[in-house]
């Protein structure tokens, strides 16, 4: 990385990030083992601060070093004047995120796991078409800056994305889930069995009714509620003053049953690592504690703008500047067993997944989504799947009173851990 040395003297601050990864994918399409892909990626991203202005450039062309240097200096001539300071060498917690068993997993073993998943889901519903992507990777990140940071992190992300779609006449059912880890875990079938359960439940279709009723959000369906929150907790929205949570640290914003934490130091999770992508040590960030707003997610720049310290949430790809991003997000477990939650409902709805996440005026806390998979609950029992139902509201209203939070939590979307939530008075709109 002689680029750091070449830029020495031409700028006050210099940071060079080198990314290198190899990803191997085995892909099953519609039950068939179809593709084996290897992606090798390497490149350099450079940031400088020159005369107080930030410059950025990146390149995946190893022969274009001179152009890269020219680009970063030109960029700094017009760059942003935020007084950001690259961190020196800082100690970080030991975070498990590399497991040699992952890169060493034979292709034949990946194929076998894929076949096991396809076979399991096909046994539940022989008419379902199963797609599976199994991915094992080795990612090496090396970051150096003029302040003395010299970080090299190797991670071994492993993920399985899988889904079933089943078409019967004009009825289409699509289920999707993903698991992710950086430490090898033999227990890859848990989310597959969960999907199998829903594939079974979804076979019965029952009529839906509009009106106000209690709703259970599964950990998967609950993202409909936590997604607008994640957006509002992002330091970028906060320093711009457009987050409805800006300036409200210490306020009771939600029911006391809700605690929300971001923690990239958890061992072996998909996004776990000792440092963020700017060389700031990762840490556990409590964002909402018993309903009280405690913090936001910042990278170096938004932290400088807010006059606080980075929370270690600077995330970037090769070709983009860092920006604040959640890593492993956890909504804490509650006290109610799921079975008890369900048993108490006379008439209600179970939300398993929605269409169009992120649509509408998310930043305001509003959500309005048609539901992809939802079930009608009657007298404590799941009766069957309902179709053409949508749900709308605003999280800053509906989460002020949460009827119950389950003891059980589940990992969904690779890096989100959530319990089941019950809201007792939601507006359900059913067509017809």
């Amino acid at each position, binding site marked *: 990385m002689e680029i750091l040395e070449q830029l020495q003297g031409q700028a006050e601050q210099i940071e060079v990030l080198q990314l290198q990864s190899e990803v191997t994918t*085995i892909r099953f*399409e519609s*039950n*068939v*083992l*179809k*593709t*084996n*892909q*290897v*992606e*090798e*990626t*390497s490149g350099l991203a450079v940031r400088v601060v020159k005369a107080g202005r930030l*410059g950025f*450039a*990146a*390149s*995946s*062309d190893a022969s*274009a070093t001179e152009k890269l240097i020219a*680009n970063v200096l*030109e960029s700094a001539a*017009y*760059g*942003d004047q935020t007084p950001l300071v690259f961190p020196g060498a800082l100690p970080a917690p030991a975070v498990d995120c590399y497991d040699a068993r992952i890169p060493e997993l034979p292709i034949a073993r990946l*194929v076998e796991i894929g076949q096991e998943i396809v076979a399991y889901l096909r046994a539940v519903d022989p*008419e379902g078409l199963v797609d599976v992507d199994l991915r094992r990777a080795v990612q090496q990140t090396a970051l150096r800056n003029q302040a003395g940071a010299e970080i090299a992190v190797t991670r071994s992300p492993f993920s399985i994305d899988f889904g079933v*779609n*089943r*078409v*019967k*006449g*004009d009825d*289409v059912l*699509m289920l999707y889930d993903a698991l992710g880890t950086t430490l090898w875990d033999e227990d890859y079938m848990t989310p597959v069995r969960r999907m199998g359960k829903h594939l079974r439940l979804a076979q019965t279709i029952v009529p839906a009714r509009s009106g106000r009723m209690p709703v259970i959000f599964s950990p998967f369906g609950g993202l409909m509620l936590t997604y607008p929150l994640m957006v509002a907790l992002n330091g970028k929205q906060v320093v*711009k*003053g*457009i987050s*409805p949570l800006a300036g409200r640290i210490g306020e009771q914003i939600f029911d006391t049953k809700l605690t929300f934490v971001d923690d990239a130091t958890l061992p072996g999770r998909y996004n776990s690592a000792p440092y963020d992508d700017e060389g700031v040590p990762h840490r556990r960030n409590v964002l909402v504690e018993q309903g009280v707003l405690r913090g936001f997610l910042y990278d170096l720049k938004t932290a400088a703008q807010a006059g606080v310290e980075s929370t270690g949430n600077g995330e970037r790809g090769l*070709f983009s*500047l860092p920006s604040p991003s959640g890593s492993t997000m956890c909504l804490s477990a509650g006290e109610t067993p799921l079975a008890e939650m369900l048993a108490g409902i006379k008439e209600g709805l179970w939300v398993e997944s929605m*269409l*169009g996440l992120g*649509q*509408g*005026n998310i930043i305001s806390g*509003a959500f*309005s*989504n*048609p539901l992809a998979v939802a079930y009608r609950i009657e007298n404590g029992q799941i009766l069957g799947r309902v*179709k*053409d139902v*949508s*749900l*709308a509201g*605003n999280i800053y209203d509906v989460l002020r009173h949460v009827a119950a939070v389950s003891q059980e939590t589940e990992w969904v979307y690779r890096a989100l851990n959530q319990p089941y939530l019950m809201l007792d008075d939601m*507006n359900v*709109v059913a*067509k017809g």
Partner: protein
Amino acid sequence: MHDKLSAALGLSKADYTEIRLEERDTTTVSFRGRELENASSVIDAGGIVRCFRRDGGWGIVTFNSRDQLAEKVAQAYECAGNVKSETPIELAPIPVVQDQITVTLEQDFRRVSLAEKKALIESYNALMLGYSEQIVDTVSVYNDSFKHVTFANSEGTRIEEERPMVAVLCAAIARDGNDVQQAHESLSLPAGFEIAQNLETLAQTSARRAVELLSAKSVVGGQYPVIINPQLAGVFIHEAFGHLSEADFIYENPAAREMMVLGRRFGQDFLNVFEDGATPGLRGTHKYDDEGTPTRRNDLIRNGILVGRLHSRETAARMGEQPTGNARAISYRFPPIVRMTNTAIAPGESSFAEMIKDIELGIYACDAYGGNTELEAFSFSSGYAYMIRHGELAEMVKDVILAGNLFATLQNIDAIGNDFVWTQTGGGCGKGGQMPLPVAMGAPHVRIQNVVIGGA
């Protein structure tokens, strides 16, 4: 370069092999509020080798370092042997071509200084910020990219193509107390710097709409007759119908094949939908797709009847149909998959005045902020909307989200406007992790009965 490619391809033991090499220079200038967030250029260079074996499957290798092509070809062959497709892969035949496509830009953005690009987008950003005190934040982005693509396959095809793209995005965020509203407008074309200039109206429209939305009431949910504007109609036909026309959704799925059987009635006689990757000057236009198939116009719905679908060479071979020129990849990091190019609802005969005059209570929904579909089910947020009362446009409303079933909704289209336009906004289409792919969408105003509107 052709010699190197030919030498590497000549060593391949696979039944079919292709190599695609790319070099791309991209410049971005973005403002967030008063602050310049980014003014930078990045260089991306890399390649992909894709091959298949009849006794295996697809083997794919992507890379940045392009100096050992023969090794990449061997590695891809090895990958193809690690998998086993039950039905052997076949490719529908296409003509072998040698072609070189160069572009002449009116004002070549590669020769425009970063300072000038910054000044341009800064002026649009200032227009939005100065529009009203209620504009609390903006996002203004200028982006240009120039890509050089070299494609070669083991059948002898050699194509070199230059692909320019320029985009301007202006988003405004307005705030009144706790109410935060946003609006955005964008334009993107495969053209030179000239198209990024003189877009003051675009910036002002964005700011004006964000402020107007502050005084709009949330729509009351329910079923309404709805007129959608050309932009929303274009997104609707792309998202809700176009994706179902992509043969890779259906070619291995008997039930989906039945659902999308050619000859099925999808709408009334006046409904015509087409795809055209060959119309000059549109975002989704190329002479060849990323497998080297020439692009063309493909009718999808003619007089209400399903008559066609979109293919790659593989899906066409499997279904015994012709390749349509729709195998596309966003970059060398991905294999081509079946994608749309420029998708449209053909113009009809109704004027806007005729469409609105007999609506007693309805909604005029404009622009799309996002759309999502899972085959037959779709959901779209409109950017802004108005109530229609007694045959006339009435007050602005917000939070209008249209949801429904594709088949029912297409049948419920009861009027198609005569005011067709192509929408060429920035961003693009996402599928299979490949995002954003430049596409264009075209439509006139369209009236649909009984649309479910989700309200807050």
